[in-house]
């Protein structure tokens, strides 16, 4: 999943996967924090935006 997204030009780090059991609350917090940080660091994705609807 991740590989093709990166292969077609989505920045590494924008798409992340994790496996968290419902009992692993601390892991959930850690993962969410980490993902948020890495996505924030990348900034908004300007590629994956519809242009035509925005333009009109």
């Amino acid at each position, binding site marked *: 999943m991740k590989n093709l997204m990166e292969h077609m030009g989505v920045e590494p780090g924008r798409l992340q996967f994790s496996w968290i059991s419902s009992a692993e609350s601390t892991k959930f917090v850690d993962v969410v924090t980490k993902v948020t940080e890495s996505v924030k660091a990348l900034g908004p994705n300007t590629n994956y935006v519809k242009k035509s*609807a925005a333009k009109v």
Partner: protein
Amino acid sequence: MKVIKIDKNTWAGGIDSLRSGYRLFGPVMQGDAHDYKELTSDETPDLAYTNTRLSPKSVVFPQSEPMFTYSLDESDPEHHLLKDAPKDYSPRAVIGMRPCDAKALALVRMNFDTEEYRDPFWMNSYEATTFVGLACDNPCETCFCTSAGCGPYHEEGLDVLLSDCGDAYVAKALTEKGETFLAAAGWAAEGDASVFEPKKAEAEAKITCKVDSSNLRDKSSLALYDAPFWKELSFACINCGTCTYTCPTCWCFDIQDENKGNEGVRMRNWDSCMTSLFTLHGSGHNPRDQKHQRFRQRFMHKLKYFVDKYDKGLMCVGCGRCVQQCPANIDIRSICNKMNGYEAAS
């Protein structure tokens, strides 16, 4: 009507003069084939093509086109009201289109310009456009325009017809719009009207592929519909939209709302009778659920329903694009011949 001679060394200059008054469209090499596009200020139409992959119908009828805009923001006093999408209907010209494609648009007009309703998007674009044709001196193997009520020098739907005469184009102004266009380009030298007839005869003679549609008008629509050959003929068809999108006379469309946050656009997009979704009812029932039904619809529409509805011949101009591009080699020429020759067992 006037006949003008355009020396090829005045061609680029003339095109440049036209840019201020027209949005220009023309065939340009894109990737590995010619297609129509709006010309940038440094582009001239490339007239050294045999046929474009897609027809110029998109100049009048873009594949995706905004119809209305709206706001979903309830704090906006005009929320949920449809507003006209911004449009540019200033004069435009398609330069170097094939006569078959111009005739195709004239046929499609019958769908969009009716007694009861007038499609403003299609009609405004159509009326804003000057159609400058380039006669077809070297038709393709798949061309059968002369069997489809058309021809390499056909004038219907065109405002100007150009014929390539070596170091010059001879231009026949067919309408007032066409004369205005030629004048705006600054082309005024008188041309020799007599070049057209022999060139026309020569070009027509090159089209050896003949399709017989002469009996279709008098055939029973029901008998053709119930003919036993549809399943067999449609076997190879993969039900893609290639034939419908590439066809200059196919006009079917879909209407879709596209939202982005609280703003949205009501769009219309080309659609295709080849897809099952095209006719799927809300109830789940689908009158054209099967491949052969959709296949039959396409050919019956082009070769029979249209013929009956308007009595203006086929809804096909013989451009041959569907024949060339069909991934499965579905050939409208053989299907037309088959329908034309079909006699229902009594």
